[in-house]
């Protein structure tokens, strides 16, 4: 096997044992790598009855086939398993520096099961794999632990760390790489916490990779890297970060405001957009391994109530989650809130979404001071959010912390009110792109993607902007965002393409510049999958299907492919004002095109056979 090592580490934290295994090559050619490979391994070995936070639960970290190549955006990794937030399939892509180190150390990934007897860390140094005591770090913030680990092992050791929230099983806890890059969605920090695993540290002694055709790869790499960097979108991302087009998004009605009750706030556009961050608090730009786009922000807020020293800055999702979504246009406060969320180890999207829901509940009287330990939850009150609510959530402190630590869906269930104004699909709080303005196709993909409402599970958001064009596979749609026209048809390609991106662990910002023939060539000259475009798209579709089948075995059906009332009611202002989303029409058409059973929400048996999934079909039909 080339590029992929074919080797994974199987760690049983209860028994304290570590086993290195060789995987069949077919797993890769059928399921690509990353989240696809994780889904295949979960399908084969996962315990479908186990609670996500039980010792039996399986947590998987997987690389894609391009990890470790000096190619922009190609070295992310995927974390996957049963989500403690949603109870269904979850996967989360993380940038940063773990993937190349793990690949150079000789592995495509690792699987964790069991529960360590005491707080532990997993150390991987080439062939030496050890479970070490980590009691000294338990209770500490992710930033401090990252620093301590770097001091103890060396700067070049790559780290994955959870914060106190993960220890306290907050259901949307994150795992932080290098103290900056987050495995943000689906709550896998809590899974690590439930296993008493505070950190994972990886170091390889060499930087060697074998490719099928290294000479041709080198030529292609020299074409792709400049092409990726010189693209307009990359330029904009480099200059002003992922919030660069917040201003355009605001005028399109894509930016959610006060728990999705409004789609336009003119003042917020200038106050929060990426160029404002550049002009005010940006000190440097940062990047994931080998990425020349460098969209990451390093910021410093020198003075005022939100002063923070130089360090990781907020991305678009954090800026909106702690900005307009909760009724604020204070950019410095978003920097502070983002930094605090990293340290406590919580996902900024689900945290912001849950707090926004709670603020609306408080305004409506569905939540009272009796439920909140006397804390008032008012729109735009960032002081209370930062000083009181975030620490309470991470510690599960008091009634308020306990209520919000399980996410907005669980909170609304607990108080028996407010389900109509939750904003999620399958229990995952929606990201900061409102399909009513951003594009109706995104409403469809939010609903049908396995992990729930997610804007990076597939590139539908970009397709509706006009930024995806793949004539080689017939993807030539001129999509009008705020209609249902051709959205189901486009989604068929986009969900398969998203599965390819997330299984190859290639960043959506960078791979937007890679054409279909270039994608195919990369798969052929790096790991040697011997594909044509059709076979590549089939692999993507197969991964999409398999994740749906995992969800089916968790008890999910077509009833779970839905959005909440709030997300589908026509907007009351801004560009999308009054426009209805034909959600059911798009969903039905998508099911037909994908040959998905309208009740079970999994592909019909004949399709599974056609996709070489006859064995898998046996478990569900």
């Amino acid at each position, binding site marked *: 096997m080339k590029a992929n090592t074919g080797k994974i580490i199987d760690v049983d934290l209860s028994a304290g044992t570590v086993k290195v295994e060789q995987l069949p090559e077919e797993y890769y050619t059928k399921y690509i790598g990353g989240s696809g490979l994780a889904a295949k391994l979960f399908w084969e070995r996962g315990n479908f009855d186990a609670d996500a936070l039980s010792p039996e639960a399986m947590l998987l970290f997987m690389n894609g086939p391009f990890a470790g190549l000096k190619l922009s955006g190609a070295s992310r990794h995927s974390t996957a398993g049963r989500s403690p937030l949603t109870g269904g399939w979850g996967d989360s892509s993380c940038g940063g520096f773990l993937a190349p180190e793990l690949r150079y150390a000789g592995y495509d990934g690792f699987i964790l099961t069991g529960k360590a007897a005491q707080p532990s860390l997993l150390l991987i140094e080439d062939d030496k794999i050890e479970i070490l005591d980590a009691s000294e770090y338990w209770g500490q913030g992710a930033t401090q632990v990252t620093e301590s680990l770097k001091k103890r092992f060396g700067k070049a050791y790559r780290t994955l760390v959870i914060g106190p929230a993960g220890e306290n099983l907050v259901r949307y806890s994150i795992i932080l790489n290098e103290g900056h890059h987050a495995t943000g969605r689906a709550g896998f920090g809590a899974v690590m916490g439930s296993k008493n695993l505070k950190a994972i540290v990886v170091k390889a002694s060499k930087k060697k990779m074998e490719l099928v055709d290294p000479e041709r790869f080198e030529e292609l790499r020299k074409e792709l890297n400049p092409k990726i960097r010189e693209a307009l979108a990359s*330029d904009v991302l480099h200059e*002003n970060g992922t919030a660069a087009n917040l*201003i355009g998004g605001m005028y399109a009605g894509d930016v959610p405001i006060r728990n999705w009750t409004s789609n336009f706030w003119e003042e917020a556009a200038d106050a929060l957009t990426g*160029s404002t961050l550049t002009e005010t608090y940006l000190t440097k730009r940062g990047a994931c391994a080998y990425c020349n786009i460098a969209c990451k922000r390093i910021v410093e807020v020198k003075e005022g109530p939100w002063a923070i020293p130089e360090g990781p800055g907020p991305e678009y999702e954090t800026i909106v989650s702690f900005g307009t979504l909760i009724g604020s246009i204070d950019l410095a406060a978003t920097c502070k809130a983002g930094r605090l969320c990293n340290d406590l180890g919580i996902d900024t999207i689900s945290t912001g979404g849950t707090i926004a829901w709670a603020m609306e509940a408080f305004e409506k009287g569905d939540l009272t001071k009796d439920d909140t330990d006397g804390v008032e939850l008012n729109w735009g009150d960032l002081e209370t959010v930062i000083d009181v609510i975030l620490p309470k959530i991470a510690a599960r402190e008091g009634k308020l912390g306990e209520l919000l630590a399980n996410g907005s869906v669980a909170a609304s269930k607990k108080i028996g009110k407010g389900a109509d104004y939750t904003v999620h699909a399958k229990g995952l709080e929606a990201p900061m792109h409102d399909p009513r303005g951003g594009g109706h196709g995104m409403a469809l993909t939010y609903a049908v993607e396995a992990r729930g409402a997610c804007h990076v599970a597939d590139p539908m958001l970009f397709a509706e902007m*006009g*930024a995806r*064009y793949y004539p080689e596979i017939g993807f030539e749609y001129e999509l009008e965002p705020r209609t249902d026209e051709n959205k189901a048809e486009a989604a068929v390609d986009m969900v398969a393409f998203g599965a390819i991106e997330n299984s190859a662990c290639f960043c959506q910002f960078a791979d937007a510049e890679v054409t279909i023939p270039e994608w195919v060539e990369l798969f052929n000259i790096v790991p040697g999958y011997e594909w044509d475009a059709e076979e590549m798209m089939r692999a993507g579709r197969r991964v999409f299907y398999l994740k749906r089948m995992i969800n089916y075995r968790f008890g999910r059906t077509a009833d779970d492919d839905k959005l909440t009332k709030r997300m589908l009611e026509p907007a009351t202002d801004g560009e999308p004002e009054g426009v209805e989303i034909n959600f059911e029409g798009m969903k039905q058409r998508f099911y037909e095109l994908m040959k998905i059973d309208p009740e079970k929400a999994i592909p019909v048996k004949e399709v599974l056979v056609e996709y070489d999934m006859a064995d898998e079909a046996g478990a569900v039909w």
Partner: protein
Amino acid sequence: MEYWKDENEPIKMFVKLFEEGFKDADLSGGLKKVNQLIWFDYTQDGPNCSFWVDCRGGDLKTGPGKPADAPDLTMSLSADDAHRSWSNKLNPVMAITRKKIRVKGSATGLLKLAPKLKKVAELYVKVLKDEGKEGIILK
């Protein structure tokens, strides 16, 4: 060219469009924030088919041809697509993705103008009417 009888005609319209835009407080405010020298290059339709807009230093100027200074940003497209674009009938992101528009230089400032495109289109219709070009107004 579908909309223009010669290479000078579109340039006359577009320069006029910007001259009118400078008089509008909202548009001129947005343009000043761009703070760049932009060359709109339609030379694929004729050697003189281009114009420039200088938004640098809080002063707004425009004129036909290539600017004397090196532009911060060059947008190359056809004069017909430029007509569609000023009429707000061409999705700029889609056009860039499909290589109908080629961009050289930093376009970050232009993002600030995106919300104003509707207003530009309204003004453009007025300019076309004033100049007797109603026939090419896109509905």
